[in-house]
């Protein structure tokens, strides 16, 4: 399978990428500061929400209902969107989605489009696909703009440029944004103003916009985008043509289900009681906003994930990234180390579920299984359990002879009283390698001593009592 942009490294070698990230002091500090800030804000808001656990359960239940009846909800959505003069397209994979969108833009005769921040367009590699077709797509979310100008990749689902600090952002603007003032400082207001003026020119002249959606409402055929800057709303209201790419798991049954998700999402994502901008549109409104509205419903591995009885809960995900902000691994590596569009704990399960674990066998191991992700997940995705299940699948998909042998030896030593006693005696040899063990234990002794083995194991003491 061509994994496209979902995985952009060859079988993401997480341990190697992570080593580079861990050694990058600037990155470490940027990610630590950013995640700590959002984490604290979220914790404060959750503490003041007395029915938080009930909201989580409701969110999970609504999403599970959607996943159990996905076919019916998708058809209901398509019917209602079409009734409101939106055109619904279906895409099996990234290539189909990109082709559909390219064709739609070509029909307008335009070569410039503006984009709302969207993970799914990253997932399908849309900007590059459009570039190859001679269409320039401009990111309008401030952080996405920073990432695009720097020819970089997002490192976080909600805060794509959190690996950058303001000194680095100033440099990026000066080097890559032609209309940035030459006397630009790293004052956040100055940086925002430079981006604002740059983007304003784009908003006023561009006739086609592309978005994703946070929620697709089956009952009405409407879509919702939640954002902080208002740049998304500019894209959703000013152009003549609006094309939205929506993963098929984004459905919710009814408009009133938003009551649950619009409490869960902002608290979990940015640590706010409400998203500053919630934009909902339903097809075409004559004389107001885009007069050509297209919706591309995307599978791209979602039905594959749905077939996994343990893993399908990952499709509940509302992309809040709360799991990234509490993850002690993510905090030390940032997002690029995962080598995939979706980083962090959710990425470590979602990526292998979407593309098949044989294409991402290292990702389920990129976790200490500390469980902090599950604790904060607003839709109760049991990420540690899914990680362990995927590790099982990864081991079966990719036999690793030395490791298979090591675990088989251990299991055999543990298979009976006499064998186990013999193994315990052998453990005493550890005292010779406590400070420097041969591979693979050298990975332990590089930074830690091994324990000083006792004179006799516990069972010897017990037998003699």
């Amino acid at each position, binding site marked *: 399978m061509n994994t496209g942009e979902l995985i952009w490294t060859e079988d993401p070698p*997480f*341990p190697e990428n*992570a*080593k580079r990230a*861990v*050694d990058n002091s600037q990155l470490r500090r940027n990610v630590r500061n950013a995640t700590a800030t959002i984490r604290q804000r979220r914790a404060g808001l959750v503490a003041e929400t007395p029915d938080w656990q009930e909201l989580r359960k409701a969110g999970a239940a609504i999403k599970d209902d959607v996943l159990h009846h996905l076919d019916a909800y998708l058809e209901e959505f398509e019917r209602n969107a079409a009734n409101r003069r939106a055109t619904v397209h279906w895409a099996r994979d990234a290539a189909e989605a990109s082709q559909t969108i390219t064709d739609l833009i070509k029909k307008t005769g335009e070569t410039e489009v503006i984009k709302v921040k969207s993970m799914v367009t990253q997932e399908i590699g849309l900007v590059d696909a459009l570039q190859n077709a001679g269409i320039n797509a401009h990111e309008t979310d401030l952080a996405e703009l920073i990432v695009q100008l720097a020819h970089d990749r997002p490192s976080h689902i909600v805060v794509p440029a959190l690996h950058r600090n303001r000194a680095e952002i100033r440099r990026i603007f000066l080097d890559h944004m032609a209309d940035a003032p030459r006397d630009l400082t790293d004052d956040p207001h100055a940086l925002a103003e430079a981006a604002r003026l740059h983007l304003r020119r784009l908003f006023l002249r561009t006739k086609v916009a592309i978005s994703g959606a946070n929620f697709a409402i089956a009952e009405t055929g409407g879509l919702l985008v939640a954002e902080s800057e208002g740049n998304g709303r500019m894209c959703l209201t000013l152009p003549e043509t609006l094309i939205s790419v929506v993963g098929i798991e984004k459905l919710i049954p009814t408009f009133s289900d938003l009551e649950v998700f619009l409490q869960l999402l902002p608290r979990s994502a940015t640590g706010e009681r409400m998203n500053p901008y919630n934009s909902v549109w339903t097809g075409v409104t004559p004389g107001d906003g885009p007069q050509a509205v297209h919706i591309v419903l995307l599978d791209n591995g979602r039905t594959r994930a749905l077939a996994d009885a343990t893993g399908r809960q990952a499709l509940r995900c509302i992309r809040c990234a709360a799991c990234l902000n509490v993850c*002690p*691994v993510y905090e*030390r*590596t940032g997002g690029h180390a995962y080598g995939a569009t979706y980083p962090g704990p959710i990425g470590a399960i979602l990526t292998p579920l979407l593309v098949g674990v044989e294409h991402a066998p290292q990702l*389920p*191991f*990129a*976790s*200490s*299984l*500390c*469980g*902090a992700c*599950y*604790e904060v997940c607003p839709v109760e995705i049991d990420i*540690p*359990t899914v990680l*362990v*299940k995927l*590790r*099982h*699948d*990864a081991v*079966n998909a990719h036999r690793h002879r030395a490791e298979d042998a090591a*675990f088989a030896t*251990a*299991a055999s*030593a*543990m*298979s*009976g*009283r006499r064998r186990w006693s013999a*193994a*315990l005696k052998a*453990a005493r040899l*550890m005292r010779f390698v406590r400070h420097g063990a041969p591979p*693979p*234990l050298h*990975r*332990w002794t*590089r*930074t*830690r*001593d091994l*324990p000083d*083995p*006792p004179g*006799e*194991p*516990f*069972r010897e*003491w*017990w*037998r003699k009592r």
Partner: protein
Amino acid sequence: MMHGMRVALFATCLIDALYPDAGKATVHLLERLDQPVEFPLEQTCCGQMHANSGYFQPSLVRRYIDTFTDYDAIVTPSASCAGAIRHQHAMIARAAQDDALAAAAQQTAGKTYELSQFLIDVLHTDDVGAYFPHRVTYHPTCHSLRMLQLGDRPLRLLKKVRGIDLVDLPNDQECCGFGGTFSIKNPDVSAAMLADKMESVIETGAEVLCAGDRSCLMHIGGGLERIRAGVKTLHLAEILASTDGETAH
């Protein structure tokens, strides 16, 4: 307290092999509380290391069940192993399409208790009569906190220890970076997490770092020893078993 209850100790493979003092302390402590325990010699390992590395071993699940099925309760000085027994054994059996084993696993798991759970929920005591005149900080391991949801049980027990100078560990809820084979498969991230944990421990000025899992303590203690930090690691059982005459320190 249920008198006449037949209780088994599941020492865990790690304590059996490398940390017998934590096992002995568990036995001494329970005997002091008039709760004798047996140590069935057929026991080996709960299979967590295998499972978390992707190698599901239904044979170890079966061994655990066969060894302990006749007991009224099983007590183990490890939150992580208790968590694996409660949350993984049935899953491993189901993955092997063995529904009978899954049902048996659920039953045995239901009577398996981590030490602080056993003391507080089964023996109904939080004052075990210990004496330990040292400065101690407590690290709630991830599986204590989030898998078993032990809450403040270990701290309630520690607070009742005579002579103890118990100090809060900054960022106590953050993982130490052990994660079983994670520490070998992702050694650099693991070491980075360990560095922050050690910094927090050292900041407390404690002589002793205490936890309910010898595995995490092996990792943190191995790091503290490497830099000669002068902080000792002790299992919760070792502090609770200490008395005026016999202290673990």
